């Protein structure tokens, strides 16, 4: 089926659980939207909030962060630290004015190929219905305050020059 809008979804996943889970989905021949771009990290604890920001700025429409279930972390506590960090980061983004529906978090273990398919499909469809995210990319094209001639007096001077 053809759609008008194919969202770009970036998934930041941990190599031990979610990446293996996604792999399982693949080897089990399960179908899931190819909109998702998987970026593999050693652990969810390695995923810096800056990566999310950067992905949004570079044109991602939705972001998924996924790792091991609590207690299953290969490095003992990486996902616990990540959980706190992202809980706080979500609040910050919310305060800045970003729609949190575009940012999703999940725990997907190496055995949960089905859950991975479900989450990715659901997120893709949700973002598709929301349309592209232009908040961040619009900023790339915007000029600095000094460049904008919002002031009529400035504009007059500018035209004279």
């Amino acid at each position, binding site marked *: 089926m053809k759609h008008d809008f194919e969202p770009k979804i970036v998934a930041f996943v941990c190599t031990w659980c979610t990446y293996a889970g996604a792999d399982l989905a693949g080897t089990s021949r399960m179908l899931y939207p190819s909109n998702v771009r998987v970026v593999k990290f050693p652990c969810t604890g390695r995923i810096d909030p800056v990566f999310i920001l950067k992905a949004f700025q570079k044109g991602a429409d939705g972001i998924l962060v996924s790792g091991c279930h609590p207690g299953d972390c290969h490095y003992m506590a990486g996902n616990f630290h990540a959980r706190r960090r992202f809980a706080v980061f979500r609040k910050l983004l919310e305060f800045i004015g970003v729609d949190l529906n575009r940012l999703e978090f999940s725990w997907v273990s190496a055995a949960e190929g089905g859950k991975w398919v479900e989450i990715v499909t659901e997120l893709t469809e949700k973002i598709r219905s929301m349309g592209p995210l232009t908040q961040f990319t619009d900023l790339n094209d915007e000029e*600095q*305050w000094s460049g904008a001639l919002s002031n009529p007096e400035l504009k007059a001077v500018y035209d004279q020059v």
Partner: protein
Amino acid sequence: MKSTGKPEPTVTIDTSGYAVATEEIRSEAKRLLLEKIVDAVVGYQSGRRKGSAVPVIITDPAQAEQLVFSPACVNNLSIYLTKAKKEIRAKGKLAVVAKGCDLRALAGLMGESQFKREEVVIIGVTCAGVHSAGVQPNEPLTSATIAKKCRECSVHIPEGADLIVGKLPLLPDLTPTEKELLEKLDAMTPGERWEYWKEQFTRCIRCLACRQVCPFCYCEQCLCDRGRPQAVDTSPRPSGNMGWHIVRAMHLAGRCSGCAECERVCPMDIPLNLLNRKMAQELKELYQYEAGLTPQEKGPLTSYDEKDDQSFIK
């Protein structure tokens, strides 16, 4: 930022205690240096403009007479005690003059192992408030010239300092303008908030004074200065500005002690402390953590609890 209510009448704030504090700071600094308890004292001295005050580091007991305390003593001197300030640390044991808000920053820095409590003598000053940014230094302290953070100060008396000097006058009730603005923003829709912050951050000229003045921004290499990989665009344009301010707020979450120095030094008047306050508020709600109350080795984002809320995770 204007208060939502009707304009309040200007009230003068009694600063008679500041002269007492000045005398006591001088005698204490002199004693500490004479008895060789400390090698240097970090305090304030009069600046060249009438009534102004600038940070100073004295090593000679005779210089103690230079020290002052006035409403113009706006700086947070705790920044001089971080490990990043190598030339100051090399002087030996230090004493520092600290207001209540500065003391919270000192507690935070101790928690982050920037220095040990026994290495520093803290001269706490009871403070009724200091000037806001852009006020002429010789103006009297009134409800019109007082800093926003001082309007809702909860640490007039620096509990936990080695010595507390000065005395607290009767304080007038001031409207908490910052709290009101925060509530206003919280009530907005995400789209309106985005417009608000976009407008604020678009003004940013990326002078990085907020980073320079922050006691907690002591990293030798800032993530935002790195070129490869570049996390945040370094040019002062809206996109990079948004990135910088989000990263800044995130890195200070759970650490910021609310001294509002970032906001004071901002040449473009961006309400930076609002972000810090919001993060502090969220951390208090989520993890019952308040920065700067006592030196704590583990902050909320460097520790975890297995029972933390994960309702936002699928």
